[in-house]
């Protein structure tokens, strides 16, 4: 459980902004991910949460090497894959798979379900025998709760939830070690979400998968994840076990996120003092100095937070947070609905 499958060190991804048509020159960069470090332990579910533009999806695409990092290390099985080329990545691709948010655009509408789920075998040259491959695919369909007789149907004949099952079947086809699920349920109806979440959990238990789970819905993340990294403007601001984070978030941003979640309990909704952050997330092309959250932080101290960048370090209760003035227990109790009583 505690051996890291992947170690990410100081990972950076800047997307250049260019101007000019013939002679292009770089005028700036979107600092999507700016120096994040964390481990992904074998068999765990690591959650990445944050608002849109915080770099969680970019981080996921860097880990799976769908994007080339600007700098930093991604150590998988003792080897740095941050700069590996296409050819040397091919065997790794079998071990890391992704599940995407939109079950409509992530499946080729002109291919049958059978060939969509069978494509990983095709790419990696596994089981060329047609009949055997068909049986493999049908077993996968059965495993994710699809009717194997629907092998020859096209994606449009399936509902959103069923399409997401097709995406899951494709992801587990090659028996990967790591699955990166980027908002896998946010496009689904509420009554269908639970079906997919339960499916992912069951498959994790059966296949011993390690999962990186990205979502903006903090209730879903709490339900699914063992450890959680909270991101803000390209940085990790807090990293903690799920219970620690939801019982006593230490970073004011984590606290504000948890405070903002509407709770389906009218009594609690009346009692809770919601802490509402003002303003919007600043632009990642020109992030604030030092602590990037200082422009919206309720505990901002001028002359400190905007001058000296806080480092990720252990705080009271075991959370690791990057903050000079972490939340106290009293502050947490009044603002956070999940706070340990």
């Amino acid at each position, binding site marked *: 459980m505690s051996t890291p499958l992947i170690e990410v060190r100081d990972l950076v991804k800047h997307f250049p902004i260019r101007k000019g048509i013939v002679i292009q020159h770089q005028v700036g960069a979107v600092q999507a991910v700016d120096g994040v470090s964390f481990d992904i332990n074998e068999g765990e579910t690591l959650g990445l949460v944050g608002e849109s533009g915080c770099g969680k999806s970019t981080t996921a695409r860097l880990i799976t090497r769908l994007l080339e990092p600007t700098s930093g290390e991604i150590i998988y099985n003792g080897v740095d894959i941050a700069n590996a080329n296409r050819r040397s990545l091919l065997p790794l691709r079998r071990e890391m798979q992704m599940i995407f948010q939109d079950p409509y655009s992530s499946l080729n509408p002109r291919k049958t379900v059978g060939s969509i789920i069978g494509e990983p075998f095709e790419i990696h040259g596994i089981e060329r025998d047609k009949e055997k491959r068909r049986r493999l695919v049908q077993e996968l369909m059965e495993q994710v709760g699809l009717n194997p007789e629907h092998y020859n149907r096209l994606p449009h004949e399936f509902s959103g939830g069923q399409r997401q099952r097709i995406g899951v079947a494709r992801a587990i086809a090659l028996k990967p070690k790591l699955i990166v699920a980027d908002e896998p349920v946010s496009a689904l109806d509420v009554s269908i979400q639970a079906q997919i979440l339960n499916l992912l959990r069951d498959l994790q238990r059966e296949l011993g998968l390690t999962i990186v789970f990205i979502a903006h819905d903090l209730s879903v993340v709490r339900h699914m994840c063992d450890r959680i990294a909270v991101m803000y403007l390209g940085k990790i601001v807090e990293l903690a076990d799920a219970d620690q984070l939801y019982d006593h978030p230490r970073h004011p941003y984590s606290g504000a996120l948890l405070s903002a979640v*509407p709770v389906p309990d009218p009594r609690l909704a009346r009692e809770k003092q919601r802490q509402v952050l003002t303003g919007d997330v600043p632009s990642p092309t020109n992030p604030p100095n030092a602590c990037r959250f200082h422009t919206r932080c309720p505990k901002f101290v001028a002359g400190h937070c905007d001058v000296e960048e806080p480092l990720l370090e252990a705080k009271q209760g075991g959370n690791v947070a990057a903050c000079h003035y972490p939340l106290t227990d009293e502050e947490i109790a009044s603002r956070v609905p999940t706070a340990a009583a």
Partner: protein
Amino acid sequence: MSLLEVDDLRVHFHTDDGIVKAVDGVSYRVERGQALGIVGESGSGKSVSSLTVMGLTRFFKSARISGSIRFDGKELLTASDEEMRRIRGNEIAMIFQDPLSSLHPFYRIGKQLVEAIQSHRDVSRAQALDRAVEMLGLVGIPEPRKRVDAYPHEFSGGMRQRVMIAMALANDPKLLIADEPTTALDVTVQAQILDLIQRLQSELDTAIVMITHDLGVVAEVTDEIAVMYAGEIVEHASKDTIFASPEHPYTWGLLRSIPRLDLPRGEELVPISGRPPSLINTPGGCYFHPRCPYVREAHRVTHPGLDPVPDDAEHTVRCLLASDTRRRLWRELQEGKDPEQARTAVGIDAEEVAP
């Protein structure tokens, strides 16, 4: 007299595939200054019913609309297009889910607000612009005098939604219909917008119909909740009743299938099996019966009415199970039993339940 009285509203679309019964006999009332939440999944008819209140479905050639919608005593279904135009955006306003596609990208924010004001008020451009600036300030846009000249693309998602709210409230509507107003927004921005809607409701005494799939959102904002399924209201009660003692199996399913921050972390999710029915071929009997864990033979044949529960006339449920049985089932479910265990504990005959 209530501000809005919807009675037996039906909106059927005639398509090549058959008749889509998007809304099929919906009735509800909204009092002045009160907030009603309409909860349901996609295809439950929650948006179509509100678009019809706004008079926006009447232009579809395929739509057959019947029933009655009385707003402030006026019948809206038989009102002329000209009368509807005077009411729409003036006495009834609406905000939509996607604030980017609801604003015109080509015109400045101020011009769009001025247009909304001048189409209902006989005021000069300068006066309308003053009103626009005042509204932008009210919804919390910093430096409204300056930002009124900005284009929609210069605003973030949350700011655009504020502009939409400013536009909706510019003419002091009596009723505001909000269709998934925060679904496209991040949680911290969602909290800002929900706070804003609540504040405006209490300050301006506007009635609100809030349409959403998010039970958390309705718990925060509304007074009453109607749960819709397959074009019908299946349960309607005060907010506290819906969360404390719901009586419809679909409502239970919704409450048990979402992970909740207010419950212990290990709690198993109990999904609702299957998926929502086609609105062309709705199942016979109770529309929910193919997905209901407590279905009995008679439920496949008889269509239940929306009836009050024995001791609470304000709480109506569309379910054929006896109220007493429903309450025992909900108690079992609350103790953490899954539907099958609850069924056994309450003693619903397993033979009869066979799918």
